[in-house]
């Protein structure tokens, strides 16, 4: 099952390495990982998406994360109502006007933005859940040649009152 884990940890050198090391050491799988300082610059917020075989593995994973001295809070987002977003930057090459129009139309449908343009290249920015980005990439591939793809990995937050605070 797919899980999204939010981690609040000390913004210290080596803290990220400890988390990544833990996943490697205990043979846990990381699908994506994002990390950045929060409004409190002494803390970092991390979102990890992972695939686990059962609930017990997920529990053990969360306990192991919490055991790291640098980690303040750990919570699982997929259990409750939550918002998850991922940023996609994609550069595509088009050869004719028809394709360029198709790219523009597809962008509009997906509510993407064209953020850079040259004679033959479009760079498009799109946010959404991973499945939406997947679908967009598939569609855009029909009208253009994909040059490169950058995805940020998932950022997640719980809906409503629930919050992960220091």
């Amino acid at each position, binding site marked *: 099952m797919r899980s999204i884990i939010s981690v609040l940890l000390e913004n210290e050198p080596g803290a990220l390495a400890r988390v990544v090391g833990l996943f490697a050491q205990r043979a846990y799988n990381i699908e994506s990982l994002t990390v950045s300082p929060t409004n409190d610059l002494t803390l970092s917020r991390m979102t990890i998406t992972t695939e686990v075989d059962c609930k017990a593995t997920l529990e053990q994973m969360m306990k192991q994360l919490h055991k790291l001295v*640098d980690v303040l809070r750990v919570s699982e987002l997929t259990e409750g109502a939550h918002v998850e977003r991922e940023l996609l930057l994609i550069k595509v090459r088009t050869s004719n006007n028809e394709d360029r129009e198709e790219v523009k139309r597809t962008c509009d449908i997906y509510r993407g933005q064209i953020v850079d343009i040259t004679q033959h290249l479009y760079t498009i920015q799109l946010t959404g859940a991973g499945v939406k980005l997947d679908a967009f990439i598939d569609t855009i591939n029909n009208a253009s040649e994909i040059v490169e793809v950058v995805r940020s990995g998932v950022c997640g937050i719980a809906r409503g009152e629930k919050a992960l605070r220091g």
Partner: protein
Amino acid sequence: MEMLSGAEMVVRSLQDEGIEHIFGYPGGSVLDIYDAIFQSDKIQHYLVRHEQAAVHMADAYSRATGKVGCVLVTAGPGATNCITGIVTAYMDSIPLVVLSGQVPTNWIGDDAFQEADMIGISRPVVKHSFSCRTAEDIPIAIKKAFYIASTGRPGPVVIDLPKDVQSPLNKFPYEYPESVELRSYKPTLSGHKGQIKRALAALLGAKKPVFYVGGGSIIANASKQVLELAEKLNLPVTNTLMGLGAFPGEHKQFIGMLGMHGTYEANNSMHNADLIFSAGARFDDRVTNNVDKFCPNAKIMQIDIDPTSISKNIHADLPIVGSIEVVLQQMLDLLEETKATNDSESINAWWDQINEWRAKDCLAYQTSETHIKPQQVIQCLYKVTKGDAIVTSDVGQHQMVAAQYYPFKEPRQWINSGGAGTMGFGLPAAMGCKIAFPDRPVVCVTGDGSIQMNIQELSTCMQYNIPVVILLLNNRSLGMVKQWQKMFYGGRQSHSYMDSVPDFVKLSEAYNHIGIKVDTIDQLEPALERAFELKDRVVFVDVAIDPEEHVYPMQVKFGSMQDMYLSQTERTDA
């Protein structure tokens, strides 16, 4: 405010932390710290012959005293030589602070001479680590390191100290913090009240309980509570390899060690129990055997200070996170308050059953006209030391035989590498214990494979006159490997022979120690008597034992707890 250099801050911080003994090896990156140590009269430093031994010495010093062990080594190979020692401490939850030198900060990352990324290399096997980038970081890093190492589930902490940070040229105001608080690290000590109530109710209601006591009980200094609760409720008690001594080995309620080489009665009691009450044990694979067949009828109740130990291998029906000492005391207080008791009739019936298993006398063995049996050696050791020695061991058959045949009276008397299974641990461990307790007899029970993994420390013993007794169960082979090869590999003894075992008596004499060779059973007791009478000398007793002897009982692979080989010819599930 007092002005000190980084190097002086290291030494002063250790002094202010109350450190009296430190184990280490100097080198380029820690010369300034060694210079500061030279000028300190409060810290006694022991120069080892290999850094791994320094860590084992500090580790065993900690196991024997409960204090934090402390190590100082140089950068690069000095630091990496510590890794096996750090793993050993990590696996058995032993509090250590390892200070390692590092190349100057402006060289880090340049592959400088003796540069190794110690923080990175040690990361998976430490509880935490610090890298000091300025001298002013040092006192707070040391304070935090000792706090983290010794609280919660203890473990090793590494502090990386670049050379420029130690420089005697720059002085900074020094103040050692009195206390420290970390917002992201707050171990739970007392148990959840509702869980305590439920746990006590479950314990009182159990008809076939087993009190499964592990090394965590020793670390938490909970032996008093273990004994009191066990006696009040007449519970059968089994200890893990790491838990030996947490409950008196000769107590009538002690049913022996459990697990792979556990007793027939302990393993049968576990398998047939209706309640397993675990205190500071982690359901390790050397205990459970096949987890799918583990204790089929038992409810599992588990106390541990580390939440990750709970339900890791075996699901706990009733988990309690907290210090073993505090939680057991909470249970005792509640027991006292409610005046509740368990059903003595069913407990007596359970004891009748256990005593039947006991009557099997699974530790009985055949003596021989021609060979000394390893069991005889340990029993003789017990007799000569009156059960009062601190016994350290290496890893292998001798370790299991010592665990089985030397009933430990008290906690911190049995010092061995349980989790990591580190050969070479025994001798430096004995030295660390002897330094902590110079007036107590300390013996290292070892094998001819293990002793040669850190034998260079005989030289350290000579330098500081650390008079330990080394008791070598010499079977001229890697006994446990050989046992497995005989049992499971068609007898093909691939590389488990030591074709050229040295003359250990001569070797000991080369280091100005006393060596005694024992070839026949009648020589054994006089040799051991003499070894312990020579209180100010290292005595190396080399006992030629039966090379064909196996360790029994032994659990049958993939079986349940109660499936065991009892001898070369008897198997319970056959």
